[in-house]
């Protein structure tokens, strides 16, 4: 095959045309596309980084809030437990005082009843003793007794 310079030139021109056409039609858009794509990727990367940072910050905040809530909850529970204990102790004290009071009153009542029984018995005994004395005296009293009662009376009166 023979290669004539004119063919060469034509070929060269073709190539150049092709080159320019391709450059305009293909290369530029591709480069543009690529640049746009990498920018987009860049942006996306940035936004996702920001998003991630934000997410981390949020998580941090969330965890902190959670910890605070946890502490608060524990504190509330502690306070309530303490208050409950105090109330319970209070109730127990009150109940104990009341029980002591009841026991004391019961003792006093029992003592009072015991004393009134004893007094009752004593009165009865006295009554019986006096009745017995009356009966004996009614039988035993003699004229001399009467005379000595009379003399005693006037001796004491004078």
């Amino acid at each position, binding site marked *: 095959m023979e290669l004539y310079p004119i063919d060469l030139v034509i070929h060269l021109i073709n190539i150049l045309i092709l080159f320019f056409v391709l450059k305009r039609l293909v290369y530029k858009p591709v480069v543009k596309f690529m640049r746009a794509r990498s920018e987009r990727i860049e942006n996306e990367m940035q936004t996702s980084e920001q998003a991630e940072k934000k997410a981390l910050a949020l998580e941090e905040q969330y965890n902190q809030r959670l910890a605070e809530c946890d502490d608060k909850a524990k504190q509330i529970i502690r306070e309530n437990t303490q208050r409950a204990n105090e109330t319970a102790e209070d109730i127990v004290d009150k109940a104990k005082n009341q029980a002591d009071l009841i026991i004391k009153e019961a003792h006093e009542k029992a003592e009072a009843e015991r004393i009134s029984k004893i007094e009752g018995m*004593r*009165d009865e005994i*006295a*009554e019986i003793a*006096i009745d017995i*004395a*009356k009966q004996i*005296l*009614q039988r035993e*009293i*003699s*004229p001399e*007794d*009467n*005379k000595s*009662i*009379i*003399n*005693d*009376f*006037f001796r004491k*009166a*004078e």
Partner: protein
Amino acid sequence: MQQAILKIARPYDEEDIRAITSGFERLLGTNIDFKVIEDNSLIGGFSAFIDGKVYNSDIVSRLNEIRRSFFN
């Protein structure tokens, strides 16, 4: 003459009445005419009611005093 009442329990006799009358006359310094009432509930001794006053010297009063002393 002062009128008065004398309650007395058996056994007593005229001599006892005279002793009581002279005793009160000596004590009160007046003549007394006792209206004698036998009251055996006194069990022994006498009680005289003279001029609104009572002179108790009988067994029942004494027993009542004893009973009162028991109760207070």
